[in-house]
């Protein structure tokens, strides 16, 4: 038996292993995928935005209050007492985030997490054929996992960023209205807010990544033959 066509010759007959694509390629495709489905992504993101905004506003409120108490200005102390806050140096010790607030923040983060898992799972189901097609074209499982991880990380990061801004604006505006300019005009309080902001950003991103692990795994596990199914 001798081959007649150029496409099947004995020299290129050996099966090789598929190469693993660099992250940048997955990044490129994931970015496009979010861009095209922007409306959908924003809805997914809104859960993170709200949860992180809530968290950030509570953190920022705490930071600003600590700063105001530390100022120990008689006029501000009077307003603080009117608002039911404790004043004086001993108050500084426990003027952090309160226990019930920690619970509230945790709950809101949990809701955001479940929201993203749900949205990503729907997105996977919706894109079964697309994923199957990619696998038929030679995509490795790891590539599909990366695609969904990146997409979800993007959503977590951008959502958290917007949430931080939203929460900070709310807290800062409200405290300025309550206590006037001294609330915000110190570098120390801004330094603290920056730290809190970075923390909230990290939390939001981690939620994004954590939420995509299960959906990404589900997507990668599907058989390429599913792409052939016409009845969907």
């Amino acid at each position, binding site marked *: *038996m*001798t*081959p*007649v*066509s*150029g*496409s*099947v010759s004995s020299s290129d*007959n050996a*099966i*090789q*292993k*598929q*190469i693993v*694509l660099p992250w940048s*390629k997955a990044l490129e*495709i994931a970015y*496009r*995928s979010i*861009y*095209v*489905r922007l409306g959908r992504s924003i809805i997914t993101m809104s859960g993170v935005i709200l949860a992180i905004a809530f968290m950030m506003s509570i953190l920022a409120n705490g930071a600003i209050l600590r700063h105001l108490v530390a100022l120990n200005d008689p006029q501000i102390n009077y307003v603080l007492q009117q608002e039911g806050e404790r004043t004086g140096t001993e108050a500084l010790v426990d003027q952090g985030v309160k226990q019930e607030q920690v619970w509230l923040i945790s709950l809101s983060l949990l809701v955001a997490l479940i929201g993203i898992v749900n949205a990503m799972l729907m997105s996977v189901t919706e894109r079964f*054929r*697309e994923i*199957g*097609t*990619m*696998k*038929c*074209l*030679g*995509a*490795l*499982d790891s*590539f599909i996992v990366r695609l969904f991880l990146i997409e979800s990380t993007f959503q977590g990061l951008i959502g958290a960023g917007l949430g931080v801004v939203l929460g900070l604006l709310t807290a800062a505006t409200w405290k300025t209205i309550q206590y006037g300019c001294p609330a915000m005009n110190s570098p120390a309080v801004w330094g603290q807010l920056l730290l809190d902001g970075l923390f909230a950003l990290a939390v939001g991103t981690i939620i994004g990544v954590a939420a995509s692990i299960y959906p990404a795994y589900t997507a990668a596990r599907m*058989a*390429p*033959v599913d*792409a*052939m199914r*016409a009845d969907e």
Partner: protein
Amino acid sequence: MSQDSRATVVRTENVKKIYRMGKATVEALRGISLEIYAGEYLSIMGPSGSGKSTFFNMVGGLDHPSEGRVFIDEVDVAQLDAYELAWLRCRKIGYIFQTFNIIPVMTALENVMLPMTFAGLASDDARDKAAGLLDRVGLGTRLHHRPFEMSGGQQQRVAVARAMANDPAIILADEPTGNLDLKTGHEIIALLREMNQQNGVTIISATHDMKMLSVSDRVVWVRDGCVDRVELREDLNIKVGSIEGTE
């Protein structure tokens, strides 16, 4: 040229597929042995439920047989790991689907470039080659259109270009004309035939579209999980005439 002098590109040995549905077992394939030669245009015909699709998926390395073996280029598909299977799908086989399956977030050009990206081709080379392929299927002016901006026939043309991206040995076409009208279906069939004749790529297509018969070198009729009969084109000509007459 006689069939015997050709290289075998796909070979199945007594392939069986058994599905378990609860306690009942369904035998979708009851032992199919078939050789598919390099450069031929083969149609697998059969009514739905005949096991045609199951067999087709086996041939394309998309499904594992319960019994028997499938060889693609003399390599037992069951022996391949995930990386080798992905490589096989990427380089050796081009897939065309009934539902076109153009990646919706990408333009025509990007869709054709995708298999080349998976194969590790540099972006610029991939872009040039993809543009050339799209030009060849008659979409040279629509490189940057998205699937929803194209008709079904145009999408299937993109799919043909995409299937040819890595110069595969085989193109697997699953009901390629199933979602197309008569005229567009004819055009896609002609296009596949052209690729077959000019590039020597083996075309394997599962279909119940009688239009396919006239271009096929061989037709394998599948019924009840067995090969009912295999017909050469020479034997088909007269029948095709009568069928087309009734259309």
